């Protein structure tokens, strides 16, 4: 008889929950106007603190709350018993080259990936041009990945 414990499978209720969490995330991005070209352009010109304060407050809250979660929930599992997935992102040239490239793209489009979707949701049809570009850029990365330093 096998005594091997199977990892828990994803319960069905997580799927509608991810959709709902997305709605909340997108609603905050939109209500805080971080999806707006006005706010993004003013941030990158260092003329307005709003974007930096939103990002800064998010990071501080995230750091403190995750220190608490890690201290209080030693099992590092979620409420259904599945492991919390912490994505490993090792240091490599792409962190800098890709980071700078994305920064330029963020300025030109005034949209980082989350806001691209939120903008489409607001009926800002120009965001389809950004999304199309992002998919092409992703495809190009997949095409040339092996010849890039990693």
């Amino acid at each position: 008889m096998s005594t091997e414990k199977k990892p828990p499978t994803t319960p069905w209720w997580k799927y509608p929950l991810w959709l709902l969490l997305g709605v909340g995330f997108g609603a905050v991005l939109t209500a805080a106007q971080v999806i707006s070209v006005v706010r993004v352009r003013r941030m990158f010109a260092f003329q307005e603190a709003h974007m930096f304060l939103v990002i800064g407050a998010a990071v501080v809250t995230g750091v403190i709350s995750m220190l608490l979660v890690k201290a209080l929930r030693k099992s590092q599992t979620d409420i259904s018993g599945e492991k919390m997935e912490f994505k490993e992102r090792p240091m490599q040239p792409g962190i800098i080259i890709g980071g700078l490239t994305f920064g330029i793209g963020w300025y030109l489009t005034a949209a980082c990936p989350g806001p691209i979707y939120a903008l489409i949701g607001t009926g800002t049809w120009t965001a389809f041009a950004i999304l199309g570009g992002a998919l092409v850029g992703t495809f190009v990365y997949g095409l040339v990945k092996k010849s890039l330093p990693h």
Partner: protein
Amino acid sequence: MDVAITDPLPWYIAGPLLGLFVPAMLLLTGKEPGVSSSFRHACAALLPSGKPDYFRYDWLKSGLWQILFVVGILLGGTLVQFGLGGAGVPLFLPENLTAAGLALLFVGGVLVGFGTRYADGCTSGHTISGISNLSVPSLIASVCFIVGGSAASLVHRFVFGGLVP
């Protein structure tokens, strides 16, 4: 701009709410917020066989959660824009509507897609989730996002005479 700008949801509410998505999503669902991998899942789903190795994986199995999350983000935009009084700020500029403006958005999008995949994360994956988990590469990536964007702003304003809206 002739569209009136109203005050945004204040930073001291919006910022903490966004930050709380990291522990909330990890505790409830085991995943940390991230958006840009959805581009990879979309390519993996849309491309025919013969696609690069980077797109050969079970996107439905590993990516469905994230596809639902980004569809939710889209609906969150709809909710605020049409149900909760609107974003209260212009979401595009008149210059975006010309052929050259759209081409520039597309090129910018290419840089967003390529850059986030090469850096392996965007503002949500690196800046919010990564730094929350004390990842040094995520901090460096986030500084590079701001450096790249501010450099582009300098070039736009001082070389091409662009204006800040």
